[in-house]
């Protein structure tokens, strides 16, 4: 289900192992001062996937992204992007990668258009003859066409974020690395970005998306990885990850105490009774029988359902903590 097969086959694949767009082996970064930011990371991002990179702040996500982009030298381990080692082959790889790292960075005294012209001039593979057209197209794509001539320092946070995205879209890319792309955007802007990500993915671009918004990851990502304290806790297809956590049974009733007693009797675990709501781990066996037992015991059942496990449940199950990210 989560296989990248829906996307056209990667025409560039040479040998079998090159299927992954990003592959790291025991990637480790220890900063001067001894702080271990990333610890033995084995990350595999399949071609054509929309890959969600999750983790609380300080879990090593940004350090990982910076190593993949050749900005930081790993302490040990190796990383390959688009089948080539980084940072050694960064010059060959990076023109095919669009990146938004830790938010946009702009020249405030230049217009939005001139900012993009400057970034495009820094790309050795960018054709200067098509530069103006490509810049205009990228601005239109993120909805900044009308504000292109405005100085970037007058941009709102959301507009800066869009301009950063436009910079990542100046050329056709095989991989987009987007670090918190919806930061500072209003709900409408978030929807647009999600639509853009889906559109890019359907063109065959692999999207590597870091976010602290779990539902965002769940809405657009086919695959995900979870990091905590510099280590990779889990990775795989989103459906598989969520399936790892079981759904919860929810009974809505004014007779919560009685319902909880019956559920425990029938073998339900972790029963939590609130005012008019009882939740529990569903026991084995047919849930219809359980409902009948409740009714027989005189519980006025108003609602009886199993809530699907979300990625958040999976995350809680994996880390034993909430995904309560500061900032």
């Amino acid at each position: 289900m989560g296989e990248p097969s829906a996307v056209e086959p990667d025409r560039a694949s040479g040998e079998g192992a090159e299927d992954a767009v990003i592959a790291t082996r025991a990637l480790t970064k220890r900063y001067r001062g001894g702080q271990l930011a990333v610890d033995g990371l084995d990350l595999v991002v399949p071609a054509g996937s929309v890959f969600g990179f999750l983790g609380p702040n300080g879990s090593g996500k940004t350090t990982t992204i910076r190593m993949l982009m050749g900005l930081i030298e790993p302490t040990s381990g190796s990383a390959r992007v688009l089948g080539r080692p980084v940072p050694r082959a960064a010059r060959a790889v990076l023109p095919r990668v669009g990146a938004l790292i830790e938010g946009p960075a702009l020249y405030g005294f230049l217009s939005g258009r001139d900012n993009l012209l400057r970034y495009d001039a820094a790309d050795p593979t960018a054709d200067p003859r098509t530069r103006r057209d490509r810049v205009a197209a990228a601005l239109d794509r993120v909805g900044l066409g009308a504000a292109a001539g405005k100085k970037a320092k007058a941009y709102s946070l959301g507009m800066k974020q869009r301009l950063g995205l436009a910079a990542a879209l100046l050329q056709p890319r095989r991989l987009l690395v987007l670090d918190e792309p919806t930061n500072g955007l209003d709900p409408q802007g978030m929807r647009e970005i999600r639509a853009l990500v889906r559109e890019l993915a359907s063109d065959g671009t692999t999207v590597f998306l870091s976010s602290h918004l779990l539902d965002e990851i769940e809405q657009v990502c086919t695959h995900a990885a979870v990091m905590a304290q510099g280590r990779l806790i889990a990775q795989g297809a989103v459906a598989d990850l969520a399936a790892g956590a079981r759904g919860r049974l929810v009974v809505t009733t004014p007779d919560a105490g009685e319902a909880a007693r019956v559920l425990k009797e029938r073998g339900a675990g972790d029963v939590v009774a609130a005012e008019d709501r009882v939740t529990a781990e569903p026991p084995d066996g047919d849930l219809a029988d359980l409902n009948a037992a409740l009714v027989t015991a005189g519980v006025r059942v108003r609602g009886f359902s199993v809530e699907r496990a979300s990625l958040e449940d999976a995350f809680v199950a994996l880390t034993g903590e909430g995904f309560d990210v500061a900032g």
Partner: protein
Amino acid sequence: MSRAEPLEAVRTPSPLWTFGLLRSELLTTFRRWRTLALLGVLAAVPVLVGIAVRIETDDGGSLGGGGGGGGAGPAFISQISNNGLFLVFTALAATLPFFLPMAVGVVAGDAVAGEASAGTLRYLLVAPAGRTRLLLTKYATVIAFCLAATLVVAVSALAVGALLFPVGDLTTISGTRITYAEGLGRALLIALVVAASLVGVAALGLFVSTLTGSGIAAMATTVGLLITVQILDQIPQLDALQPYFFSHYWLSFADLMREPVYWDDLVRNLGLQALYAAVFGSAAWARFTAKDITA
């Protein structure tokens, strides 16, 4: 195996691409308000000197011999009222010890550190501009600023001099007469030598700029170093070290106004600037290409 091209044919970079990056760098630098403000201040110096000399000499006679020179070293200033072209030499002599290198220190110090603190450096590097190429481009741009700053002073002085004072044939330091046209040629040559005198400070500033992620810190450090060296150059006990200070031979440009030109100190100056450029340029390269970009 690693030779097998897993990437589809990317457009091969044109060898001229580096000039595109340089053009972008020049445009970006010279469109900053700070750069324009620095150039504006430099353009104002000859205006102030010219007006001051005009007021002093308005009631007849030339400047009293002694006091005029001041920090300007050679006594060009007393000649201004006779020939406006001397305002060029005076203005360059007045700005070279401090104003010009300070402006260069600001631009060079900000070159890498400013981009790092704004975060734009990481986007240039993932574009990917290439670290060596970006650094070379930055250095070339700072050198271009050295030249632009010197020419701004010279042109402003030339205009003010022609406006406020008579122009014509002039007398060299050695007492020989040269034509105004030849004087202009000498002035241009002097401006180029002054610009070249700033190459060492530019390299030093660029090196400092690679050490920190704060543009302000880099600018302050570079200007601080400049002032320190200028002070140390005045302490007689350090005369064994002084020939190695980048500012030691700066005022040798006056020797171009001798007939025949006295080359020794001029050559020493240019050699010293080349040495500074090589040493601090290499240090900047070693630092910048190995640096973790975390800003």
